[in-house]
């Protein structure tokens, strides 16, 4: 339910994601390449945070999460700490993957999250596995599974959606349609206007949501998860959004027309949420500023701790390729 408290929590989560990713962006563009603070690149959701934040906030603690790469907002909501995220990006001692992977490539049972991999759409089939196991165990929960417009063209995603529909699995598939897959625009990705149109072909209900309106995303995903938990099967939700930066921090995205950016800038998810909160009388400009100041200070404190973390050295690397025991 979209209570006033939930609305404020959504706003705060949008802000935190923006502040964290702005920091990643800044470091990636300003660090000494010989002695980098961040290993690898940032794959950011800046300017489209509402898809991840709105969807993840609609989950119950016992639900499971199959994130995609622009889901830092969702990870923070699932309980991944800023410190874990920073150490993961910096690849230093205390990194949750022990330096074995970087940036957005992680996912842990303690957060009821599957580990993201770079093969786009791959987690759709694994999300079905979690949902199948839930059904077999009699657990009345659901899985939130996120992927993008690019992934929607891969064979594995088509297999997954058909399979979920046949099995009436409790999975909510959220497609973050941000119009660009690296440099490939939508019209080179698919011959249809709306990815949601495919729902009928798979045999599941589908809908289209304004992806930059965090409250709209929350509402749609909340209802779909509730329906899935009740045993009514999967659902496909297409969130219309726009990737407002390059694919990664190394990509200047010069291929995106200026007017496309200009149009979507007017639909910035933070400004949109602020407008709605002002209309509701839930917050004012001072409140917004206070949230920003508080979260920035929080990030700075965590950064100070993380830059002290030691380097990662090989430790049980070969032993941990396999699990021990039974």
């Amino acid at each position: 339910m979209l209570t006033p408290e939930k609305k404020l929590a959504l706003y705060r989560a949008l802000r935190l994601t923006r502040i964290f990713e702005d920091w990643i962006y800044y470091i990636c563009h300003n660090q000494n390449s010989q002695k980098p603070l961040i290993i690898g690149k940032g794959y950011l959701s800046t300017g489209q945070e509402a898809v991840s934040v709105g969807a993840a906030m609609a989950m119950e603690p016992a639900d499971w999460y199959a994130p995609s790469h622009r889901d830092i907002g969702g990870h923070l909501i699932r309980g991944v700490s800023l410190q874990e995220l920073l150490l993961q990006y910096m690849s230093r001692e205390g990194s949750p993957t022990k330096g074995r992977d970087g940036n957005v490539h992680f996912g842990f049972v303690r957060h009821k999250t599957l580990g993201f991999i770079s093969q786009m759409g791959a987690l759709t089939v694994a999300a079905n596995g979690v949902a199948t196991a839930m059904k077999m165990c009699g657990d009345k929960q659901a899985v939130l599974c996120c992927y993008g417009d690019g992934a929607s063209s891969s064979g594995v995603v088509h297999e997954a959606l058909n399979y979920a529909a046949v099995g009436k699995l409790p999975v909510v598939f959220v497609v973050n349609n941000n119009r660009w897959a690296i440099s490939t625009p939508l019209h080179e990705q698919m011959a249809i206007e709306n990815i949601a149109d495919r729902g009928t072909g798979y045999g599941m209900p589908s809908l289209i949501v304004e992806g930059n309106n965090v409250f709209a995303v929350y509402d749609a995903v909340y209802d779909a998860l509730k329906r899935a938990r009740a045993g009514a099967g999967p659902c496909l939700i297409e969130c219309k959004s726009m990737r407002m930066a390059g694919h990664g921090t190394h990509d200047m995205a010069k291929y995106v027309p200026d007017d496309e950016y200009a149009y979507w800038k007017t639909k910035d998810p933070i400004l949109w949420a602020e407008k709605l909160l002002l209309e509701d009388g839930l917050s004012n400009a001072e409140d917004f500023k206070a949230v920003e100041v508080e979260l920035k200070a929080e990030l700075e404190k965590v950064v100070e701790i993380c830059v002290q973390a030691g380097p990662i050295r090989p430790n049980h690397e070969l032993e941990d390729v396999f699990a021990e025991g039974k």
Partner: protein
Amino acid sequence: MTREIYYADAIREALALAMREDPSVYVFGEDVAAYGGVFGVTMGLAAEFGQQRVRNTPLSEAAILGEAVGAAVYGMRPVPEIQFGDFITSAMSQVVDLMANYHYRNGTALPITVRLPSGGMLGIGNFHSNCWENWFVHVPGLKIVVPATAYDAKGLLLAAIRDPNPVLYFEQKRLYRLVKDDVPEASYEVEIGKARLALEGNDLTILTYGNMVLEALKAAHELGKRGIKAEVIDLRSLVPLDKELIFSSVSKTNRVLILHEARKVAGFGGELAALITEEIFDELAAPIIRLGAKSMPVPMNPNLEAFYLPSIQDVVAAGERLMKY
């Protein structure tokens, strides 16, 4: 109590025992439920365990193995079947990118056993006969077993299902109703990573696995008639590999013949040969000989398939050649 049963029945017995002892074990794949699988291996399981624990899936290998990963992360012990081992190509990414490295990267063990009916010698052509096990030897994080007897089929499958890691279980479809041997009724395990001394001999060592164990034993019999005592080692498990038994046999016979049904070029025999020369070169009295299928698609016609495969005569000739050194 032991009694003679077929290889296929040993597999079914292992599945039933594993499902009885652990409610998290479940079987799924194409046509595995009431139909019993295209080879009848899962026949009767749906009747005993219900259609939720023995479940038919759409024709979607990637979705099948993806389900296995998600279900294992959630705490189940999935035992998916890929109808023909050949069809694993449609789920390559799920095995290589998602399943194999999951424990190393995220710290979560995935107790998955993938059943892969493999191998040919049945005249069923290129899409139903391949032996792709060696591809997966190259992928860290997967255990790879290939049973050659009914006893091992049951014991290795039980060990695989109880193992916390993904195990690719390459069952040999030719052996389903060809091989019959003593199998205990009760539950037992064959340790993954232990080879089996199939025949003792002093003159040369034949390292083999799967379908070719039978052929190696026939060839050893022929060699015996010529006064050559071949030792036959059935590897049973490619990962992990029983280096101890291999090295002790080679140190005794000083001559090595490697035989597999998979193609010779870049097959597992190359790895074995390199390992032996790297680690116990001084024990060798002769160059290592590798025998495997020819580098061509598996032909359908039995005469052509016989041409593609290494023959018993090839093994005998290679054994005689080794003894000339």
